[in-house]
């Protein structure tokens, strides 16, 4: 029996977290759920404690990278075979998790990304955001040598080798795209599967219009620095 850990990074997600946890309990009762409360100032921590799931409470806000790495380190310490990232804002759906886990169970891949863009779907985003996602996907596809359509997707599942890698090395902020480059350098396999995503049910995206320019520049720079980095 494979031990699966679902990591839910949460920073001030009191509105949407209860729904996400209900969804997970209903669709995957056998998996363990770990909320990583990234120094929230609202009742996120309390919700996590009272809902009976496992929870890591970071003493202050580390950002999504540090929070996810805390989750991967938990998975590493407690011998989980598979660790998922599952955002608690309602965009990720519990019923789609099986699709991500399957290629890992079959040994076909080390990291599986759930992509919004493989299905002719209804996903809409601002023009600027779409351009950004396209640019990243183009660069990442070139670097990896395989097409990646949704490199910024946070809906992903990792096997034991990736869990061990991430608990040693994980990018700090805006980690999704960078993590793929690092995994590729470590010769780990990355694949994508088509998933449906829901609408955000609460909170706001951490990427505001002003920040998105910084986001683009920072991630692009980081990708090229990562290519030069030594990877253990």
């Amino acid at each position, binding site marked *: 029996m494979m031990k699966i850990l679902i990591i839910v990074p949460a920073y001030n997600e009191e509105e949407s977290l209860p729904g996400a946890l209900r969804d997970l309990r209903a669709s995957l009762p056998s998996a363990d759920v770990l909320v990583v409360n990234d120094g929230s100032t609202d009742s996120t921590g309390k919700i996590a404690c009272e809902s009976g799931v496992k929870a890591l*409470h*970071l003493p202050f806000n*580390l950002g999504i990278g540090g929070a996810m790495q805390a989750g991967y380190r*938990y998975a590493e*310490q407690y011998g989980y075979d598979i660790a998922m990232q599952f955002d608690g804002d309602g965009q990720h759906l519990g019923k789609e998790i099986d699709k991500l886990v399957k290629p890992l169970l079959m040994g076909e891949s080390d990291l599986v990304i759930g992509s919004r863009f493989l299905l002719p779907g209804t996903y809409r985003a601002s023009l600027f955001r779409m351009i950004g996602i396209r640019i990243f996907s183009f660069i990442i596809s070139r670097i990896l040598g395989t097409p990646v359509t949704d490199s910024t997707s946070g809906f992903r599942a990792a096997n034991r080798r990736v869990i061990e890698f991430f608990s040693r090395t994980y990018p*700090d902020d805006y980690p999704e795209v960078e993590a793929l480059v690092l995994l590729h350098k470590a010769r780990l396999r990355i694949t994508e599967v088509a998933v449906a995503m829901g609408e955000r049910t609460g909170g706001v995206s951490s990427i505001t219009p002003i920040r998105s320019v910084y986001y683009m520049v920072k991630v692009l720079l980081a990708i090229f620095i990562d290519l030069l980095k030594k990877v253990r």
Partner: protein
Amino acid sequence: MDVIKILAVIGSAAVLVVVIELIRRGRLKEKYSLLWLAAGSILLILSASRELLEYLSHLVGIYYAPSFLFLLAFLFLLLITLHFSVVISGLSEKNKRMAQELALLRQELRELAARVTDKREGRS
């Protein structure tokens, strides 16, 4: 003696005195003082000896010797700030690890505490 020389000697001597005093009082760790001490000493020697300064600046093709002094001071500051950036990066990585470790330990403690209460109440 020209004014620039007096100023340079006083300036670099002051740097040395302040750095040494900070180390003596334990406000500055030796590890982080090495670059400051090196900068202070070299600038002091070069300010005091016009001949050496002239010789070295001509060697690198600078014909107004005091500007060689400024160049050196500038390079030292650059080196020191770069050193700080490296140190800060190391510290922030350690800080992150520590925060993660703390959260992991807290969860472990909570799980252990739950197990202990379960046992006491004869539930497992």
